[in-house]
């Protein structure tokens, strides 16, 4: 059942088009993440769902009801802001109770709901405090608590973890995932952090410059990115791209030239081979985690620039031909900078893109 639906949503600020037609729908209980670089319009899109920004064109419906021009409060959504937006002059209790008071709920029900939310988020001891007496993580919980009490149809999160330090961010990420599981609520979450997107989302919407680049589960985006942008955005460290030339195209196999390949070329089996002609330029995408050292069949010869010891694994920054190539390998191989590395490629993890950056598929 479609719970949240966006149909060709557009947004203009004056003459500037920020959202250029986004269509997308989410099921009830789904955790959807909007991800993209800053300025891609993801926050604007979220604020349009909330009703804080007017929709310039298109249709927006929640739970089967057209809310394109509905007041924010009547959409029954709640939002956790990046700045938390806690009312500084009110206690934690009053912050959480504010929306319920606006809805004119009876006092005992307000109390019951706030206490329940406080229990879920383990902030019962903080209820009498003012926001300035709370740590960043505690403020975050209160902000989430304020969303929970209203029992909204959709939870909206606008980069809620970006003001926290790394450790707390990981911790809160897990808690948000738990919260989603326990409440079974529909959540839309905006982030520029692909790790948050990968770990939290049922489905990810990748946005760039006001347009959807791809929608899919984290695994789909990782395994089958539809273009170089998505391929580069999803996965960390970022995917390596080699601009190569096709020297031979047979049935199901391509011979591809690049100075980084040992012997100057490699043969790649690809179901898309039939669509590619000899002499075409393509991009070969290789994820750092799919490159291996100590292999019987090395395919790449790279020159090590610098290595980073991460404890359990090591990240190598190398150059192949004239292009940078990153690889991440388990353990701590001791190799000095300037040495040549012979590197193998996991054969079923080679991504191919055409000259326009679109994925080459069968």
């Amino acid at each position, binding site marked *: 059942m479609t719970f949240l639906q966006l149909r060709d949503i557009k947004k203009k600020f004056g003459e500037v088009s920020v959202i250029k037609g986004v269509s997308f729908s989410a099921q009830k209980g789904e955790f959807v993440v909007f991800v993209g670089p800053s300025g891609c319009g993801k926050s604007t899109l979220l604020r349009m769902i909330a*009703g804080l920004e007017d929709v310039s064109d298109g249709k927006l419906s929640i739970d089967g009801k057209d809310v394109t021009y509905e007041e924010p*409060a009547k959409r029954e959504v709640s939002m956790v802001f990046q700045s938390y937006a806690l*009312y500084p002059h009110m206690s934690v209790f009053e912050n959480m109770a504010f929306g319920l008071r606006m809805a004119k709920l009876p006092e005992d029900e307000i109390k019951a709901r706030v206490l329940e939310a406080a229990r879920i988020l383990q902030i019962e001891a903080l209820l009498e405090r003012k926001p300035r007496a709370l740590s960043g993580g505690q403020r975050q919980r209160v902000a989430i608590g304020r969303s929970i009490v209203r029992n909204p149809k959709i939870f909206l999160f606008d980069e809620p973890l970006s003001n926290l330090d790394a450790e707390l961010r990981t911790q809160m990420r897990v808690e948000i995932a738990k919260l989603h599981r326990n409440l079974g609520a529909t959540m839309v979450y905006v982030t520029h952090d692909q790790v948050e997107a990968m770990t939290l989302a049922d489905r990810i919407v990748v946005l760039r410059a006001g347009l959807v680049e791809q929608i899919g589960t984290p695994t789909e985006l990782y395994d089958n990115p539809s273009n170089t942008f998505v391929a580069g955005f999803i996965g960390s460290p970022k995917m390596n791209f080699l601009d190569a030339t096709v020297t031979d195209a047979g049935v199901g196999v391509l011979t591809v030239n690049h100075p980084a390949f040992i012997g100057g070329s490699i043969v790649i089996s690809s179901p898309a081979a039939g669509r590619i002609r000899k002499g075409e330029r393509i991009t070969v995408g290789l994820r750092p985690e799919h490159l291996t050292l100590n292999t019987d069949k090395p395919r790449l010869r790279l020159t090590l620039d610098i290595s980073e010891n991460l404890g359990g694994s090591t990240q190598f920054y190398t150059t192949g031909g004239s292009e940078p190539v990153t690889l991440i390998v388990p353990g701590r191989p001791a190799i000095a900078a300037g040495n040549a590395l012979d590197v193998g490629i996991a054969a079923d993890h080679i991504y191919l893109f055409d000259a326009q950056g679109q994925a080459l598929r069968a």
Partner: protein
Amino acid sequence: MRLSTSTLLHALGLATVVAFSLFPFYWMVAASFKTQADILASPPVLFFTPTLENYRAVFADAKVFGAVGNSLLIASATTALAVLLGAPAAFALARYEFRGKSDLWFWFISNRMMSPIVLALPVYLLALQTGLLDTHLVLILIYLTFNLPIVVWICTDQFKSIPPDLEQAARLDGADQFTIFRKIYLPLGAPGIAVSAIFSFIFSWNELLYALVLTRRNVQTAPVVATSYMSGYELPWGKIMATGTVIVLPVTIFALIVSRHMVRGLTMGATK
């Protein structure tokens, strides 16, 4: 050694400024305790036998009490109205885009550009025609025109410093515009509102020109009464200075008490 020299110079500079600004004040208070002969003595006497005669004369004069009462009434009413009208206007200017916003803004500033004396005669004629001459209302109205821009200015700045996210969170929480103003902006903007109220009160309390032009016997304010002694053939300096002291003392004490808030309120928008 160098540090202490610079500290010393610093202190000396500050002392000069303080002395310079406080000297007239000292002169007024000192003169209020002097006899007419001591006041007019040349060279001025530094050491004199203080007399309470001037204060006795001032407090014996029923006019002074009436005038202080008038001033209090007019300053309070002006301040209350200025805040009541100015704060919502400031909220609109701080948070909404509407046609003519910048024109309105300029109009507020332009009120402060004109020298008050320029308007004195037209306002006098207006008051005469409408029969408002020598009423509390006419002073409240004219002070309101001077105070509203200040209130709007300070409050707008204050309201602008309140993060817009708060308003949006409140909107999602189901608060309407008036509730947002009352429950979010008023409490959070309180320092700025207080500062603007203080300015408004002090201005109305001290204003002389319009009070002089627009009042006769009924609604004389305290500054007017102070100057009213300068009439006929004598200049009772002691009495004038005593009245001046009586007038200035309440606002001075008031300003000292609230000065910390005033400074905070004035810089709040800038530093946050």
